């Protein structure tokens, strides 16, 4: 069943792209959210894994919680990182699945894709790949993934049901969706939902 969306999808994507382009190229600027190692520590990531990653793999991280908090990936698993940004969660996933696993990050922001690909090359993570795409239409075949991870991205998509339907499509039967995102305890008024600036800031 389709439902009217509160904002223009293309306009919102443009705003999100611009915001996260900034995070990719100027990770140490001030944003409305935490970034980098401070954000990873706040979200409760395994410090040993984060400390082992170089700054360029961590500095543009802008997640909101820890998608590995309720389940650690198994060695050899095939993983999709929905909204992979500069690749931080994909690199954590690569550490967990090992050389026998595969991690495919999906993102729509060119600067994030370039940064994540360059970092994967620098780290020698041959099991990690980054593809351009939207969460509603991911370039992944049906039932390919053992697990889908995501961090702070689904809240930026106006049609969340479409995103969850797409994640279900790419997961194998019995596969796991493990993601982190924000949720509000008090209702957001309709006028605020229509304000694109509030979606990204």
């Amino acid at each position: 069943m389709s439902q009217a969306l509160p904002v223009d999808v293309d306009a919102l994507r443009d705003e999100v792209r611009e915001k996260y382009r900034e995070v990719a190229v100027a990770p140490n600027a001030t944003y409305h959210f935490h970034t980098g190692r401070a954000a990873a520590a706040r979200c409760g990531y395994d410090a040993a894994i984060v400390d082992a990653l170089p700054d360029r793999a961590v500095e543009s991280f802008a997640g909101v919680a820890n998608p590995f908090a309720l389940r650690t990936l198994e060695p050899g698993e095939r993983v999709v990182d929905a909204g992979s940004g500069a690749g931080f969660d994909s690199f954590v996933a690569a550490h967990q699945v090992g050389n026998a696993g595969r991690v495919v990050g999906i993102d729509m922001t060119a600067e994030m894709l370039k940064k994540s690909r360059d970092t994967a090359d620098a780290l020698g993570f041959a099991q990690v790949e980054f593809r351009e795409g939207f969460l509603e239409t991911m370039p992944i075949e049906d039932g390919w993934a053992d697990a889908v991870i995501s961090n702070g991205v689904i809240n930026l998509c106006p049609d969340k049901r479409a995103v969850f339907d797409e994640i279900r499509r790419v997961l194998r039967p019995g596969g796991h969706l493990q993601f982190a995102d924000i949720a509000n305890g008090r209702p957001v008024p309709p006028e605020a939902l229509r304000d694109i600036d509030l979606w990204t800031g």
Partner: protein
Amino acid sequence: MLEEAGFVDVRIGGKVDTFGDAEGEEKARAYEVYGYSFLANKPT
């Protein structure tokens, strides 16, 4: 919504004060916004 989309065994982790001490803290507090971890499975 996860269950409506066909997922099962939905679990929610503890909250993270995502925006605490950040520029967005005031707006986050206004709507009690926190970060959470979620786990759900696609049925076999």
